[in-house]
Each structure stands twice: as C-alpha cells, then as structure tokens.
C-alpha cells in the first residue's frame, strides 16, 4: 500500500495529526514504567488523549481525501519519510525530565495551534478544537507543574531538567520555519511563535533553567518528511502487529 495525499489542507493537517500520534506512542511507552503509580496513570491518560486527537484528525484528513484510506491505514501503512511529525515529539524518554520538558514544549505549541483552528473554515476541525483545547489545558497544567517541581527541586532533578531542555531545544527551531501551507491554514504564524517563546521563556526563568545558545542546526525540515534517528524504531514497534498480521482483528 502506497499512501498518497493530494489535498493541500489534508497535507497540512497530517503534520498536526502525526505530531499527536507520535507523541502519543512515546508517552504510551511509559505505561507500567512511570516513576510512581499515580504518575503512570496520568501519563497513560495523556497518551490516550493524544491518540484520540490523532484519530479524529486522520478521520478529517480521510474525508477531505475522499475516504481513499482509513485512519488505521494512515497510522500503520506509512514509512518514516511519509510521516510529518515534529522531531521534538519523537525524541525518546531518556528520563522523566525529558518526558516532561518535551510534553511542556509541545503543549504550549498545540495550545496556540488549536486556538487558531477554532475559527477554521473547516467546521469539523473547529469543533474538534474546542474539545481538544480542554485536554491540552490539563496536560499543560500538569507538565508545567512538573517543570517547576523538577527545576526547583533537588540538585539532581534540576540537572536532569537542564540537560533535557538543552537537548530538546535543538528541535524547536524547525517548528517556526513556516512554509506556504502553514501561512495558508494558520491565521497568524508569527503569533504562534511569539506566544510560544514568551510563555516558555517565562517558565524556564521561573524554574531556574538557563537557555543555552544553540548553534544553528543543519537539520532538514520535518515538513519534508525528515526525522531524527529515533523514528524508525518507534514505527517498527507501533506498526509491527498490523504489518505482520494484516488480517488481525481486535
């Protein structure tokens, strides 16, 4: 199966859907591996929200594309270069600080994204956004709370959060390298960037994390299907079952 996507809006929405899906898969890896029982369940809830969000977006994409493929087709039958998620969200769960820093940076970003989608001319997308923003709000409160706890916690928790932020900030630049599609479907790209920066910078200051200078990156853009080295492993685990047993049913 070679999945092709024709429509411009579908191509644009695929970036948002893939970002939700891949982060959902990463967070799902914490299920039964959380730092303690309550946080394990919190992370599983966040993961399920992300999968639900991705599924609804794939359904909207499928509809735009004339139902050539199902949501499952998009998830299980595309390879690395056919995925268009932010590199930020495919980064591994090195430790709990990575998980939290990644989630926080993502939450602030999608809060801006779905706020703008609320006034989209695509009614389904606008409707979905209202529901999704509540989930994002909770996830944001949760991840921001942990940013403060870790940043202002022990010497070790501060060091781990600083390492996580320093590493993950390398993957932020590409988020704001807007292209034609972004400019067409967001009302205000610059606002996404400026709101993201002021919110994240204020939080990093408040939790005592420094923003180290990052040398300009020579990474190729996620909008063209480029990834870090982690995506292949993630997909191989996520897609194994339906690829090995195409007729398998729940």
């Amino acid at each position: 199966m070679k999945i092709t996507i024709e429509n411009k809006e579908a191509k644009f929405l695929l970036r948002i859907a893939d970002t939700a899906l891949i982060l959902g898969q990463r967070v799902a890896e914490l299920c039964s591996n959380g730092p303690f029982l309550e946080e394990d369940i919190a992370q599983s809830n966040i993961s399920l929200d992300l999968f639900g969000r991705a599924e609804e977006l794939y359904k909207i994409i499928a509809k735009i594309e004339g139902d050539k493929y199902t949501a499952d087709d998009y998830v299980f039958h595309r390879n690395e270069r056919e995925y268009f998620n932010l590199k930020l969200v495919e980064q591994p769960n090195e430790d709990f600080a990575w998980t939290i820093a990644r989630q926080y940076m993502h939450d602030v970003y999608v809060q801006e994204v779905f706020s703008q989608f609320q006034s989209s001319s695509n009614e389904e997308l606008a409707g979905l956004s209202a529901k999704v923003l509540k989930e994002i709000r909770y996830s944001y409160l949760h991840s921001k709370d942990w940013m403060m706890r870790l940043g202002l916690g022990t010497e070790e928790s501060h060091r781990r959060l600083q390492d996580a932020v320093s590493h993950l900030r390398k993957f932020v630049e590409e988020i704001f390298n807007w292209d034609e599609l972004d400019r067409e479907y967001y009302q205000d790209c610059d606002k996404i960037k400026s709101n993201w920066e002021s919110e994240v910078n204020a939080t990093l200051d408040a939790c005592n994390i420094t923003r180290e200078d990052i040398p300009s990156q020579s990474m190729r853009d996620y909008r063209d299907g480029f990834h870090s080295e982690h995506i292949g492993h993630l997909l191989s685990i996520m897609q194994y079952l339906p690829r090995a047993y195409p007729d398998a049913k729940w």
Partner: protein
Amino acid sequence: MESGDKVWEVFVQKKSGLPFKHVGNVHAYDKKMAVQNARDLYTRRGEGRELWVVPTSEIVSVPLDDADAFFDPSEDKPYRHATFYEIPDGVKHL
C-alpha cells in the same frame, strides 16, 4: 514513592448539589499534586465534576477499642427509627 509523600483521601461529587463520596486514596507530596493525581485516578471515566482531597492523617476516626461503646447502644433501640407512625391516607410521597 519515596519519603516526603503523604496519603490523601479522595472524595468525588458526581454533579453539583449531590454529596461528595469517598472513592479511595492517592499518594502525593502536596495539595496540588494530590488533586491532579486524584483527577487522573478517579475521574477519568466521567465520574464527577468536583473533587476533594484530604490528608489521611487529618481524618479523625473512632478508636477501634471504643467501637462497642460508640455503636452497640444503638442496636436495640428500634424506636429511634421513624417506623412507628401511622401514615395518614393523604400523604403520597413518603
């Protein structure tokens, strides 16, 4: 969890106006974490609209040794139940 955490009792209100019901407990370091953990454990399937968390150590209970003194005397006093009244014919909703 390591030292520093506490156990908190969780009460959920299904909807505004109804009484809060005890549903279980959670571990957490402080109030904020306690309500978040309670939300994630006890309201993820639409169980409620409001939550209370109370440190377990703040709950006052009757010492087990005193249970007989506290509760046994009420067992043979059926007249404390309002079941010895004739209900007038006109009363419909009792």
